[in-house]
């Protein structure tokens, strides 16, 4: 073997290992099925949860190491393109994988208690890990083909997970609605991709960008871009494909609601950022295909609708579901405030950082709901009355999540929202920031209702909280500490996010 060939070979191996986070998640999913096959009668819940948690934490650690070591970033020679540019590992994909893996770890640890008296636990954990694998691939997808396939890999296990409580009518209904809307939106996405292929003759994002400059069929291209946007709106639970979100989050097992509303949403944004920035760059798209305007409309409508609907809810889980739609609207600012040649990295990075903070505070809030469901306390605001007197530690954590989601100063959510709105103003979109700020103020109303119910109101009924579930408490407290630590630690986070986002342009 010539030295050149040898060098090429080692280089190939090294490049391939950049996908380690996704591979680890996939292998963990397979290992869980293996454990289930070896002990078919009684797979221990602790073993299954342990394997799932270990796999996702390992994947998180590897991702963090890659991010610090500079894999795929400017310091080590730029993005690593694999398999004919179908996948690309860069700072942005690692940043998003960090969100997916940490959310997955919290969810599987919490699921240990939640699944205590359920069967088919191994399937639950492995489907969660497979969905996380799909999300990790979504973050690296650099061709419309891999975008579609990885999006389906993340979606299909999610449908099954939402309908996991087979005998619970709410869970089945949620699974059905999620599936039906998901199937339609994936068909719309596929059709949009086929139209873009019809105009450009390629699916790789870079080649699409090179071909759209002088299109013969700008109208067809515009329709294709609009349909692709629709497919991503489903994944991020944005208007107009948001109808599934309140139903699916309310009916699904609470850890899965946490998983979908944090990780799955972030995954949708990961592909949306990469596809729109790299395949349809603003400098190159024909005049009729100005997708930024579409995102501006979507961002304003999504945050307004989400926040107003959340304010009218009586059910806490459903309120969180609508608040999750509202936060999708904030994150959409990352794409809505882009301009040809503006400080685009700043606003996109701010949106990514907000999704990271959101991953902690929103997962924590939904896991608190899981904890309350585990205790058998009701679902409405009134049922939460006086909860703080019986479970003070969990109530403190929930208070942190609520105030952080509302964007109050001493928590992580304040800085991420502040930087997001500030960077929108920097980019010249003061009205986007204004709409966001007004919505944020409104959101304080319904978030503080939870806090008021827990701490101030007197309980209507006696609670019988006997258990202190270890897994749920660990996950909720971890999320709470994460939300708090992201206030002093926000500097490096936003710096990393804006640096890796700037390299996309």
């Amino acid at each position: 073997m010539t030295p050149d060939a040898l060098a090429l070979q080692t280089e190939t191996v090294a490049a391939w290992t950049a996908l380690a986070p996704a591979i680890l998640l996939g292998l963990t999913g397979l290992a869980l099925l293996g454990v289930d096959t070896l002990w078919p009668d009684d797979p221990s819940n602790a073993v299954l949860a342990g394997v799932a948690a270990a796999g996702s934490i390992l994947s998180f650690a590897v991702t963090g190491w890659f991010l610090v070591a500079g894999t795929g970033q400017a310091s080590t020679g730029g993005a690593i393109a694999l398999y004919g540019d179908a996948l690309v590992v860069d700072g942005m994909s690692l940043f998003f994988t960090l969100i997916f893996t940490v959310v997955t770890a919290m969810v599987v640890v919490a699921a240990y208690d939640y699944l205590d008296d359920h069967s088919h636990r191994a399937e639950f954990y492995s489907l969660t890990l497979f969905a996380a694998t799909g999300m990790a691939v979504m973050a690296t997808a650099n061709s419309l083909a891999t975008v579609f396939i990885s999006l389906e890999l993340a979606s299909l296990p999610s449908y099954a997970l939402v309908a996991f409580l087979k005998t619970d009518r709410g869970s089945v209904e949620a699974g059905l609605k999620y599936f039906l809307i998901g199937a339609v939106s994936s068909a719309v996405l596929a059709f949009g991709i086929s139209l873009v292929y019809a105009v450009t003759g390629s699916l790789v994002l870079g080649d699409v960008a090179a071909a759209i400059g002088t299109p013969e069929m700008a109208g067809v291209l515009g329709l294709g871009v609009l349909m692709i946007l629709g497919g991503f709106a489903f994944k991020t639970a944005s208007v107009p494909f948001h109808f599934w979100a309140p139903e699916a989050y309310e009916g699904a097992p609470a850890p899965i609601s946490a998983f979908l509303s944090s990780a799955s949403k972030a995954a949708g944004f990961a592909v949306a950022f990469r596809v729109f920035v790299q395949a349809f760059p603003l400098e190159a798209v024909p005049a009729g295909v100005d997708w930024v305007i579409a995102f501006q409309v979507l961002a304003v409508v999504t945050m307004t609708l989400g926040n107003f609907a959340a304010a009218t809810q009586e059910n806490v889980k459903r309120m969180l579901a609508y608040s999750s739609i509202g936060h999708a609207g904030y994150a959409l600012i990352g794409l809505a405030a882009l301009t040809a040649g503006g400080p685009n990295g700043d606003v996109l990075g701010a949106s990514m950082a907000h999704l990271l903070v959101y991953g902690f505070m929103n997962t924590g809030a939904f896991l608190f709901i899981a904890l309350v469901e585990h205790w058998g306390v009701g679902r409405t605001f009134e049922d939460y009355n006086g909860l703080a007197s019986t479970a003070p530690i969990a109530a403190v954590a929930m208070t942190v999540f609520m105030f952080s989601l509302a964007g109050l100063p001493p928590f992580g959510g304040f800085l991420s929202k502040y930087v997001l709105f500030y960077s929108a103003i920097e980019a010249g979109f003061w009205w986007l920031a204004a709409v966001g700020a007004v919505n944020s103020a409104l959101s304080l109303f319904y978030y503080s209702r939870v806090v008021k119910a827990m701490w101030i109101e007197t309980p209507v009924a006696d609670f019988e909280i006997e258990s202190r579930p270890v897994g749920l408490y660990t996950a909720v407290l971890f999320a709470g500490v994460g939300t708090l630590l992201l206030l002093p630690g926000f500097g490096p986070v936003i710096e990393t996010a804006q640096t890796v986002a700037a390299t996309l342009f």
Partner: protein
Amino acid sequence: MVPPEYYLLLSAAVFCIGLFGILTRRNALLFLMSVELMLNAANINLVAFSYVWGNITGQTFGLFTMALAAAEVAVGIGIILVLYRSFDGVDVTDATTMRW
């Protein structure tokens, strides 16, 4: 040779038939069939323009689309089965325990 625009018209027609089925049918199985029509409309485009552009990217992606459609139906049938057990039917408008 058939002009490429005709393929676009055909695929758009198939897509719209699928969309019409989704909006009007209440049976979950007919809903699934309508989604298949929409996905196959995408396949028509992919295969036709693979021929027009002279590369096989579109055909290859068409194969993936078919495989994913099959996987989607497999999950979907499972969910429709539990729907049938819980709600005694496959009418998608029957499942209304939560506010829509």
